[in-house]
């Protein structure tokens, strides 16, 4: 029996192809944009989490501004034991531009110490990272990011080359593997030199230093965070001069933000689903009116109320489900295009697909029930008389 309803409804839909397509356009747009936005949001979230996780989860960031120089230069070593700090590295960053053959290249100089490669989980592709001796001897050596060789040395092996920073020649001793982009910029256009050297070069004691700290274990992250904060509170004149937060806090904030943004966008997009649903209801009402006589004939031939109701309800669901499938196709194309044209990977999860299709069916049911009910309630005598 169900098969018959389906074939009747399918026939009615296919005999008005353009109308069905236009009717379901709202659902098409709604479904495709909701799927695409949800997938984009989820992919962005996953990507961000992956990036942050790759830095390490027992990591703490402390940004300190010390304009009047009250902080002892070895403050971190003083509290290392009590604050359960495993490794740390300060970092100060300054942009420098190079003009090579008339092309301007922006490079960021990062002043760090010998433990920076550990706390930031750097991998070396050649040479070595700065070591304790480099730092103590104050000898001008530099480690470069993976894109520096292409940008500054015309693709040649940078090891042993000389890089002039603010008039001082630095010998390149190592190259770091690709790290990619994140919210603070392109990590592959960095040049790492000694922290003290960087401070001297840019005479920038007053600039903000970010400390990358790893706590002894993941469990002691909060202890470290509290101790460091307590120390800075006691030394600095104002607690607005520093910010300290852990990797997991950032992760949590990112997560909340992305989820919020995703659901907000999907919410906006789902308004078009609502509009699409109203369109369906509108057309179904027209259809019922147009086919009043057909309904009368069917009733005269023995159709029960429920049978007429089901026929029109299935018709509405077919239209919205069709819209959902077309929308799904468009979303897949969109995801494919975005993935192909950018380095952002958008994957549409099976759960999103199921959700979208269930949504399209529900819209057909919700907005189809009123017209279908109206059809089923027609009096056979009246309906047969309808011209």
């Amino acid at each position: 029996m169900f098969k018959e309803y389906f074939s009747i409804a399918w026939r009615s839909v296919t005999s008005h192809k353009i109308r069905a397509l236009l009717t379901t356009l709202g659902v098409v747009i709604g479904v495709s944009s909701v799927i695409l936005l949800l997938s984009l949001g989820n992919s962005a979230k996953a990507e961000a989490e992956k990036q942050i996780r790759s830095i390490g989860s027992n990591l703490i960031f402390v940004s300190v501004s010390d304009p009047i120089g009250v902080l002892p230069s070895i403050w971190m070593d003083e509290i290392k034991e009590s604050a359960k700090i495993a490794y740390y590295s300060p970092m100060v960053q300054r942009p420098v531009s190079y003009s090579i053959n008339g092309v301007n290249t922006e490079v960021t100089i990062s002043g760090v110490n010998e433990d920076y490669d550990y706390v930031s989980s750097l991998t070396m592709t050649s040479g070595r990272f700065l070591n304790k001796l480099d730092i103590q001897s104050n000898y001008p050596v530099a480690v470069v990011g993976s894109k520096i060789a292409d940008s500054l040395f015309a693709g040649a092996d940078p090891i042993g080359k000389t890089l002039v920073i603010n008039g001082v020649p630095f010998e390149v001793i190592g190259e770091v593997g690709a790290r990619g982009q994140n919210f603070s910029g392109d990590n592959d256009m960095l040049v790492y030199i000694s922290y003290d050297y960087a401070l001297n070069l840019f005479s920038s004691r007053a600039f903000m230093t970010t400390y990358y700290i790893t706590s002894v274990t993941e469990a002691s992250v909060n202890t470290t965070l509290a101790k460091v904060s307590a120390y800075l509170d006691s030394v600095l004149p104002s607690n607005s001069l520093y910010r300290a937060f852990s990797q997991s806090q950032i992760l949590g904030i990112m997560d909340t933000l992305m989820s919020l943004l995703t659901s907000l966008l999907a919410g906006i997009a789902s308004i078009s689903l609502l509009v699409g649903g109203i369109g369906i209801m509108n057309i179904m009402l027209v259809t019922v009116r147009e086919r009043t006589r057909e309904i009368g004939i069917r009733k005269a031939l023995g159709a029960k109320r429920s049978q007429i109701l089901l026929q029109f309800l299935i018709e509405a669901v077919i239209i919205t489900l069709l819209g959902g499938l077309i929308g799904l196709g468009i979303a897949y194309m969109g995801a494919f295009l975005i993935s192909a044209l950018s380095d952002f990977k958008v994957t549409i999860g099976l759960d999103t697909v199921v959700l979208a299709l269930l949504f399209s069916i529900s819209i057909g049911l919700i907005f189809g029930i009123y017209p279908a009910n109206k059809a089923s309630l027609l009096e056979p005598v009246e309906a047969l008389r309808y011209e």
Partner: protein
Amino acid sequence: MGDVLVKALDGISFEIEEGEFVAIVGPSGSGKSTLMNILGCLDIVTDGTYKLNQKMINEYDENDLAGIRNTSIGFVFQQFNLLPSFTALENVLIPLTYARVHRKEREQTAKALLTQVGLGDRMYHKPTELSGGQQQRVSIARALANNPEIILADEPTGALDSKTGQEVLSLLSQLNQQGKTIIIITHDMAIAQHARRIIRLKDGLVESDARYEDFDV
């Protein structure tokens, strides 16, 4: 209608036996359409009783009425009332589908009926590809689908020329001879002459009820 109750039929009473061929005639406004709707279970009486096969139809609900229309009554309409986007075969299948007849059996029955009314070679034509007489024959086949006891024909020749009209009437006579109860509603006495009993309606009342034998042909 406000407070004014218009009585289309008032105080009429008659019985139709199984196997009769009855014509209900009367001018427009005589109440014959209302009578046909009641006989066909498309409408129910507001007062009084209608008994069909010993069943008190006026006590039935909508679903039961649909069931009776489906299995006990076959409608033949003046305007054929075929579904235009369906083929002759599919039109005949509709009542069988609502009766939940099995697919194979359904097709067999519908094809046999179309062959019986002489449209064995037109089964896959749509109504627009058929002549008026052929369309009416499709609708007769459809009326016969669930093998009902009664064929209710409302001006069955109204949209046909006299020759095809005659063909349709003789088809109905044939069905009567096979045992079907035939009720024709018409305003045309010439059509009514084909029946063996004529009930004349006027202003909602039975004016006369006469058997064929009483008539001068």
